[in-house]
């Protein structure tokens, strides 16, 4: 801006111009300061409206309570501050705690299995002796392209006795297997989730593997390191951030499990309406019309996801030091 000020002006005017330039500069500073906000505005407005406000409304709603008089509230309806009563009610019948426990069990088993599986796949695809790595990368990633709903329906036909060739095969071998029973259906869901997300997590790890500079490998090979040794002492430590990231995503994803359980409900009588925490909140809000308790349940789920992710991050970063 200041460069546009003409230099050949007579000195009498120069003062005035200098003042003008300073003003312009201040104005420019102001504009510069305002620019990021303007550029951020479209995002911020939507972020506030679709993210921050609903969260605040949910937190507010979780602290209110509706009291009715008469058989349908025809004698008056009151909305009052409830303190923590919705939270105690959310835990009172034990179903939410049970569903949280179920997801914990699910996460403790499924997340490590999936992370190990996707790490092994990534290391194999990135190893020097891999054949057609591009093709196999695409194949492993493909299940992620199948929407969760469709994946569940596909798998359910492999689970349902009488329709499933798997159950039929086991039957012929004399093994009675029930994929949808009370004790097994959780692992049938875990199988669907693993099938869907292993390829996706593998991609994240592959990306990190690709960013390892080639000279490190070269130096290792000069030193006579085996493939196994390279994987253990070079690749695994260097893909640590990707592993941490995929694990945190998986922990959060586990707590948010919903579609698979809800869809399998029509095949498996053992899946209750409070089978997963999100299913419980959904049922409370939209089947029982108890928005306040549902809000409390949602806040609890979010807090637990936050705490678990935070604990995991603290643990992993402490070990790094």
């Amino acid at each position, binding site marked *: 801006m200041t460069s546009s000020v003409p230099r050949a002006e007579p000195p009498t005017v120069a003062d005035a111009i200098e003042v003008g330039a300073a003003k312009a500069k201040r104005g420019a500073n102001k504009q510069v300061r305002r620019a990021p906000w303007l550029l951020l505005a*479209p995002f911020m407005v939507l972020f*506030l409206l679709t993210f921050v406000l609903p969260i605040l409304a949910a937190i507010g709603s979780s602290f209110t309570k509706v009291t009715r008089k008469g058989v349908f509230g025809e004698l008056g309806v009151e909305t009052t501050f409830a303190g923590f009563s919705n939270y105690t009610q959310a835990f009172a019948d034990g179903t939410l705690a049970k569903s949280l426990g179920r997801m914990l069990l699910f996460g403790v088993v499924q997340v490590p299995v999936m992370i190990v599986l996707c790490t092994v796949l990534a290391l194999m695809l990135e190893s020097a002796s891999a054949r057609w790595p591009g093709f196999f990368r695409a194949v492993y990633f493909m299940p992620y392209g199948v929407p969760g709903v469709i994946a569940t329906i596909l798998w359910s036909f492999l689970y349902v006795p*009488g*329709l499933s060739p798997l159950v039929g095969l086991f039957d012929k071998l004399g093994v009675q297997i029930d994929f949808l029973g009370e004790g097994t259906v959780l692992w049938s869901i875990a199988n669907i989730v693993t099938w869907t997300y292993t390829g996706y997590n593998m991609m994240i790890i592959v990306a990190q593997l690709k960013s390892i500079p080639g000279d490190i490998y070269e130096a290792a090979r000069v030193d006579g390191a085996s493939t196994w040794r390279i994987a253990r002492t070079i690749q695994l430590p260097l893909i640590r951030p990707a592993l941490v990231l995929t694990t945190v995503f998986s922990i959060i994803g586990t707590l948010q499990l919903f579609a698979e359980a809800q869809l399998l409900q029509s095949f498996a*009588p053992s899946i*209750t309406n*409070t089978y997963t925490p999100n299913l419980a909140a959904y049922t409370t809000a939209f089947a029982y*019309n108890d928005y306040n308790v549902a809000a409390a349940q949602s806040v609890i789920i979010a807090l637990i996801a936050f705490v678990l992710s935070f604990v995991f991050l603290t643990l992993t970063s402490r070990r790094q030091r």
Partner: protein
Amino acid sequence: MADPTDPAAPPGGAARTAQAPSALTRRRLLSLGAAGLAGGAASLLSGCATPGTTSVNTQPTIPAAGEPVRLQYWAWLKDLQKVCDVWNAQRPDIQVEAVWIPGGNSGGYQKLFAASAAGGSPDLAQVEFRSIPEFMLVNALVDLSRYGVDQYADRYNKALWQQVSYVDGVYGIPQDSGPMALYYRPDLLQRVGAEPPATWDEWAELAAEVRKIGAYLDVFAVSDASGFCAYATQAGATWFAVDGDHWTVNMTDEATLNTAAFFDKAIDRGLVSTAFTLFSPPWYAAAANNQIAGAVTASWGDALIESVSGGAGKWKVAPMPLWQNGSQTTGYGSSFIGGSTAAVMADSKHPKEAMEFAVWMTTSRAGIDAMIANSGIGWSPTDSYIGATRQQPSEFFSGQNYNEDVFVKMATEQNPDWQWWPLTTQSFNILADAFRRKGGSYTLVDAVRDAEGQIIEAFRNKGLSIERRGSSS
């Protein structure tokens, strides 16, 4: 990452210069938009009172428009628009448009509740009998007695009318129902040399015989309490009632506990399967394999049984088995399961016109026949006309004229005192969760007792007053 010299890169530079002159306007637009959104957000926040806490039925009634009106009817009935078109052709002054929603609790109610909470519900909505009080609780329905619906009361089945009447009001027009009967496979029954059972005791004996040829006479749904509820209703139970300004409950009367004990025994003896539910994919697989010899279910089950592969000509229908007390039969001949109403929603601007359409649809011959032909509705709510196509024998059901032979009688032999309550869905879920624990020393009888306590608790949590009825507590 993108290479600026890449010829394939979008001509961003050109676009930027082209947009430069309009930048100010756009910026202003943005700020205007932001202000507008902020205003919207403010009104959103101020509207954050819990939805469904004001009632339309205390406001003055809305008179007939006196000019052509357009109505919307949200329902999960197939091809409902074709039914509306029959009406629309006769009544240019009231034009009805059908909008499809998912069935009941699988998404339709969620949508209706959300629309109602936002003040944008349609004129009419398909609401199941058992869900009417739930919609009333969030003030989503219009009391039609204020629009003169009582003049049509005698056209409808008595027990059904009772199920839409609450506290001096009428909150829905019965649209279809499902009187229950016994569907059975005569060929499988013949293999054990039996006739369809007349009583539940005979049914249990037969079920044991049928197990010997590798089939089940029925399934018992631990995950869906509506079947158990219907059996208890048939036995004479009335779980909920209104007493003045509060609810009364008795889920542990003799009729209910006897029903629970009966099915306890049936499950313990392995007479019924609890591994899958009626009409679920595993059920169809078993039925196609001749492993299902019967099913006690509603009249609308006929269409579902017709989709059993290879089932044509193999099924028949008999009356529902009766409950017995000693040598005497007790309770009622049958029970309704399922069935819906056309309810006028609170946000309707033309409740009177909406009611007129609903009454035509459910009581006129043209309406009923169109509903059966296009939408395949359940049993007609009008005792005097079951629909032309249902007066003929069915090829699938072994040439039996089963509707006139069996269901006409079943529809009239109903428990007239049964009423639904505002927490039906939740109560059924509580019951189902308790039923799922069945096994070992835990019985269905225990489950019903436990569930009753939890349901009372749920009522109180909603701020509703409720008391236990009877002295056996």
